[in-house]
């Protein structure tokens, strides 16, 4: 790919990639790596596994690039669909991982718990707690607040109505808050 002004046009990038333009595929990678990685990482919480699965997502997209139909100029939903399917497949194979482990908190004194837990640790705990939510709630929370997608985009991706997505995200946030309260973190 030689002309830089095409770099932000995903549809063109897909077309170029279809014709074997690896550079165009590289640009697509840079555009969609972060959302795909974030989405997978929030569900897996293992960097190594997330890297492997992200790689599989891009390989799968490339292998099927001739079948990719880009509607409304955004291949993001296609990337997410591939990621979701791979994730489902991965979990199906690795069912026992879904058995949630008990969250082990650092051995802090209750009085100065909030002061000692740094935001990063809290982030880790929240990510673990997300996996205790229903699958629908998990997806909505990850896509909305980790991947920073709009409710409209999420609704389209998940095949739900926007008000259903809004309801799911507020219920998920409420549940997360309750769980953090129970752990005396909030």
């Amino acid at each position, binding site marked *: 790919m030689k002309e830089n002004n095409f770099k932000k046009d995903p549809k063109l990038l897909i077309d170029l990639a279809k014709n074997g333009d690896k550079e165009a*595929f590289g640009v697509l990678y840079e555009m969609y*790596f972060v959302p795909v990685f974030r989405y997978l990482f929030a569900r897996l919480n293992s960097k190594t596994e997330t890297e492997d699965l992200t790689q599989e997502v891009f*390989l799968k997209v490339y292998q099927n690039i001739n079948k990719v139909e880009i509607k409304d100029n955004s291949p993001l939903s296609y990337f997410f669909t591939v990621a979701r399917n791979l994730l489902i497949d991965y979990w199906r194979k*690795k069912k026992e991982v879904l058995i949630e482990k008990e969250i082990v908190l650092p051995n802090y004194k209750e009085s100065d718990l909030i002061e000692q837990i740094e*935001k990063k640790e809290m982030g880790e705990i929240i990510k673990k707690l997300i996996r205790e939510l229903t699958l629908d709630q998990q997806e909505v929370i990850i896509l909305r607040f980790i991947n920073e997608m709009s*409710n409209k985009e999420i609704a389209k991706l998940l095949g739900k109505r926007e008000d259903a997505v809004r309801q799911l*995200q*507020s219920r998920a*946030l*409420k549940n997360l808050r309750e769980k953090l309260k129970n752990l005396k973190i909030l």
Partner: protein
Amino acid sequence: MKFEKVIEKAIELLDKGKSIPEILNSFPEFEKELKEIFEIIEILGKEKITPNREILERIINQIGIEKGVTKEELTRYLERETKLKGRLSLIELIKSGFNMAEKWKIIVPVGTLIVLAVLIFATQSSKKPTEIAGPTATPVSTGEIARETPVFSQETPPVATGNIDDVVSVVLSDASVEVSQIERDIQEDVNILGIDNQALNDFLGAYNENEF
């Protein structure tokens, strides 16, 4: 208003560009709870991830030409696959059992049992030793000829020493066994002849020609 609905409204306002203090002021009765919700949202958005060039290189290498996978990655991949496949086989087997149609749930175990029974029977019958009839005590009634099944002495074969004297003694001992066997056979024949004579005499004694 329910707290869930408040969260929904608060996020809607946030999307519209309202600041957090403004939103908190809009819902004074839920100020504390909403503050905590915004804290959670803030933490969730903190994840900073940058595209990993190494992964891109690996993907590019795998596209078209199947190379460029690092040894570490390959090992990791193979380990993961083996682990997953290992776990899978038994799970899938059990799962397929549950997914069977009703008739197969009966046919498969019954068939398996039949095959096992046939195999066990075949194994047992092939292992069964050939029974050699030993000397049996046959009840001897009057006039009946009791024939004793010849029993050959089961001597342990001599050990091959290579000595000529040993070889000669083995040959002689074999010959003496044969001679004694022949003697026994002759004696038996004589006995049979004696018994036959006796039986004939008895018959002639009992037979009265004039009766007929």
